[in-house]
């Protein structure tokens, strides 16, 4: 007693801190003014307790029976975490830092065990059903492009058959039979058909009434391209005025503008949190199935995404010119015209091009729910088990997306390059005007063609379907009763864990490849340069295919369910993480490496002290970013049989239970928005 009286402050403090961390994890840290650390520890413990209990009750995960007492062994790592937390608080008291890895490891064990079980990982299926996988991959490598007719029987003529055919032809042997483009290929690309003459041709006297004319009828891939293009044009046009409403530096100049600003930002965030594919479900209630529904869904999501990007661009402009133009006595409209628009035009164009790339990717899968485009074609062919037909579509998608990706990137680069533009003072030469006119006419023709191809119908737009009123009413009064909310939350947890596991698997697979795809590490010898290009090409090819298209492959291999969806997400994560990681490696600053080298450090020491500190924070930040993306993607993979909340959503939509569907959508919005916020904050803290 006397001793503690002599040194009162430290020991009472020590007991107090130990005790508070013991009763509430993180409280001790919180009291020691390490507020963030305390909060994170508290949340980690809270979430773990919920998840362990939930997974035991609903899924029997970690179930053990101890003398008739049923419990979960997952409480064990949580107890270890608890102990770690107390030790951490005591270390903080002595102003030391305690190693965080034991704490992280405990939480990781809990999360991965639950993730592994709820996503229904069955590794044995990967092996047992390997023959199915081989069938799929053989089919995917032999797409249905050419048909050969042998004795009047049509057959798919894949590589082997084509090889024989060409060989026979070259050697002068008789071939097995005549070949032609397959119906499947023509359905994707397009074909020339005899159709009744359209009325305008008859009116112009170009065709007889009732006669047939040869017309090019576009295939589903062309329709997809048209959908992506139209959605990009529409969303850019709509997003421009919207972005001004969501820009703080503009709205704060107008009376009552701040309210409009918050309103606009809020709406944009909510709309953005709902994936394009989910919008597709809602839009078809309004305008009915078809490519037009796809265009609207793409446009809605794009307006929100572009609106946010545009408004941030407006907020970050140089205030100097605005000040100068305002000082001349110009009003708001004039200021926007002369001080703001010239500053934002290039980046707006660049963002639109970026969005074009994204829209094209979404357009390939929007048909899964909305109909139209190559996505609808895929659903139809896969339903009939036509994997060779599906393969043709997949290759068409890869080629188009890789091309679009390349064009969009090059175009953006040339727009954003800071080139001083030549100012034309003299009258434009005649041929220049002619060329301009040519481009305008060409653009207009493409626009009209795409307008028709993507089935845009203003009539449908202003005549909402009969169920749409019901949908709006039900979405406002969503069903929050526990028998709806419980399964929805359950599926949401599955979805989050699918994303979590997919991110982990993708990252583990991507790590070695990211080093091969980093230009500063490879490319010294010819062989390593080839490895670099091959790795880059592989990552780009894999990245050009949307997760939904992968799901279709994986359900054939491992069966319908969350495991297939998780694998599909893992493949897309692998491709994107590989790209992001390799870029992080390429951005390493050589200075510290030189400095550490100069101290006499060897190679391993140089890596630990100069390379790792530079790449670990961006790697972790990209992982969080990928998890964020994967949660969005995981909400829709259920539409193709990938499990998770997407399945619940389609079921409710299919049975017209819109008040329940509304609950799901609300749940998605909340989770995605929370993740978005949390991941942005975490990444900010890391970089």
């Amino acid at each position, binding site marked *: 007693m006397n001793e503690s009286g002599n040194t009162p402050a430290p020991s009472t403090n020590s007991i107090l801190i130990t005790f508070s961390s013991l009763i509430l994890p993180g409280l001790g840290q919180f009291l020691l003014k390490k507020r963030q650390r305390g909060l994170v520890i508290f949340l980690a413990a809270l979430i773990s307790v919920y998840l362990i209990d939930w997974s035991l009750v609903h899924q029997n995960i970690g179930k053990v029976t101890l003398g008739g007492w049923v419990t979960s062994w997952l409480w064990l790592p949580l107890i270890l975490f608890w102990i770690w937390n107390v030790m951490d608080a005591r270390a903080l008291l002595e102003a030391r830092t305690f190693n965080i890895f034991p704490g992280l490891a405990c939480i990781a064990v809990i999360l991965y065990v639950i993730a592994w079980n709820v996503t229904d990982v069955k590794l044995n299926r990967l092996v047992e059903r390997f023959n199915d996988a081989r069938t799929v991959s053989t089919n995917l490598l032999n797409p249905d492009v050419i048909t050969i007719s042998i004795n009047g029987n049509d057959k798919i003529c894949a590589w082997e058959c084509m090889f024989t055919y060409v060989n026979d032809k070259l050697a002068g042997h008789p071939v097995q039979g005549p070949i032609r483009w397959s119906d499947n290929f023509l359905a994707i690309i397009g074909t020339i058909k005899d159709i009744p003459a359209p009325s305008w041709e008859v009116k112009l006297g170009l065709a007889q009434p009732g006669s047939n004319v040869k017309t090019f009828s576009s295939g589903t891939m062309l329709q997809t391209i048209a959908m992506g293009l139209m959605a990009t044009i529409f969303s850019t046009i709509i997003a421009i005025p919207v972005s001004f409403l969501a820009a703080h530096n503009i709205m704060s100049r107008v009376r009552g503008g701040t309210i409009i600003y918050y309103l606009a930002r809020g709406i944009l965030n909510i709309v953005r949190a709902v994936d394009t594919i989910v919008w597709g479900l809602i839009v078809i209630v309004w305008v009915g199935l078809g490519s037009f529904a796809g265009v609207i869904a793409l446009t809605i999501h794009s307006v929100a995404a572009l609106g946010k990007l545009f408004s941030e661009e407006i907020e970050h402009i140089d205030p100097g010119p605005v000040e100068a133009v305002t000082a001349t006595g110009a009003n708001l409209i004039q200021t926007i015209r002369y001080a703001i628009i010239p500053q934002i035009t290039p980046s707006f164009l660049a963002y639109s091009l970026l969005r074009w790339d994204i829209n094209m990717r979404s357009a390939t899968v929007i048909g899964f729910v909305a109909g139209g485009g190559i996505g609808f074609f895929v659903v139809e062919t896969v339903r009939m088990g036509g994997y060779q037909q599906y393969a043709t579509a997949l290759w068409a998608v890869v080629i188009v997306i890789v091309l679009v990706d390349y064009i969009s990137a090059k175009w953006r680069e040339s727009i954003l390059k800071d080139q001083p533009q030549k100012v034309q003072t003299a009258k434009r030469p005649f041929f220049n005007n002619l060329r301009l006119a040519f481009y305008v006419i060409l653009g207009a023709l493409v626009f009209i063609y795409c307008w028709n191809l993507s089935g845009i119908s203003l009539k449908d737009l202003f005549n909402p379907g009969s169920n749409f009123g019901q949908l709006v009413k039900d979405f406002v009064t969503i069903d929050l009763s526990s028998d709806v909310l419980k399964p929805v939350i359950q599926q949401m947890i599955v979805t989050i864990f699918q994303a979590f596991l997919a991110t982990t698997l993708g990252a583990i697979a991507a790590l070695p490849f990211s080093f091969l795809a980093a230009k500063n590490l490879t490319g010294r010898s010819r062989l390593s340069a080839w490895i670099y290009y091959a790795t880059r090409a592989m990552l780009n090819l894999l990245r050009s295919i949307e997760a939904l298209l992968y799901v279709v492959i994986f359900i054939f291999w491992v069966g319908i369910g969350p495991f297939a969806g998780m694998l599909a997400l893992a493949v897309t994560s692998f491709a994107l993480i590989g790209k992001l990681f390799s870029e992080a490696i390429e951005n390493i*600053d050589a*200075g*510290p490496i*030189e*400095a*550490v*080298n*100069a*101290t*006499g*450090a*060897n190679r*391993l*020491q140089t890596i*630990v*002290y*100069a390379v790792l*500190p*530079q790449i670990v*924070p961006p790697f972790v930040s990209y992982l969080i970013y990928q998890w964020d993306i994967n949660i969005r993607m995981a909400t829709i993979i259920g539409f193709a049989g990938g499990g998770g909340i997407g399945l619940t959503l389609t079921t409710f939509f299919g049975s017209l239970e819109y008040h329940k569907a509304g609950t799901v959508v609300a749940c998605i919005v909340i989770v995605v928005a929370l993740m978005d916020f949390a991941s942005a904050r975490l990444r900010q803290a890391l970089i």
Partner: protein
Amino acid sequence: MLRVENLTKVYPNGTQALKNVSFEVKDGEFLAVIGLSGSGKSTLLRCINRLIEPTSGKIYWNDQDVTAASAGEMRKIRRQIGMVFQQFNLVKRSSVLSNVLTGRLGYVNTFSSSLHLFSSEDWKRAAASLEQVGLADKAQVRADSLSGGQQQRVGIARALMQDPKLILADEPVASLDPVLAHSILKYLEQLNKERGITVLCSLHFLDLVHRYATSAIALKGGELVFQGLPKQIDDAQFKAIYGQEAERVSII
């Protein structure tokens, strides 16, 4: 003692950065290396600790041939030679203390240092080095939160951890505000005078050379064009080194 004999460096792209450069630095000297940008100053300093491999010529450090040293010998040579860089070359995301500790890597074993384990002596040495450059209170903050002048002082503390006999300073003040130049160079001068550390320092401003250096060499287009005392650089010498167009400027 450092002796450089007929040092030549030709880069793979054909640029001849150093042509037949020979000179000697006695222990305890503060040698300034002057010359225009691109005259070969950085290449010269980096050849001495072989961050850049010389094409031909010899470098002797205390009579040991640096150019012929094996990887293991090079590690032992490098740890005696501290280096300070124009761009500081700190690991920006790591803490100041962690950056300073990297100066000890040439001495400690690979395994334990890979786990970030240092002896308590090294921790004390790091604290003392930071104390020396007046940054004891900044040990735990991230390197990129410091100002340029403070970052360069961390760079000096890192070099001090090596217990160096020689410090190579590559334009240590060129990225700093002129007013901060003296504060950095004073630290180097102090190490030179109090601990007898030899300093090789490339500098832009001639008045800094006059103020701090005990001897000087000048490079022009990769060739040694002057060797002597700083005060021997008169107007004629100045024009020979920097070209006819050059004007003397001074800072502060």
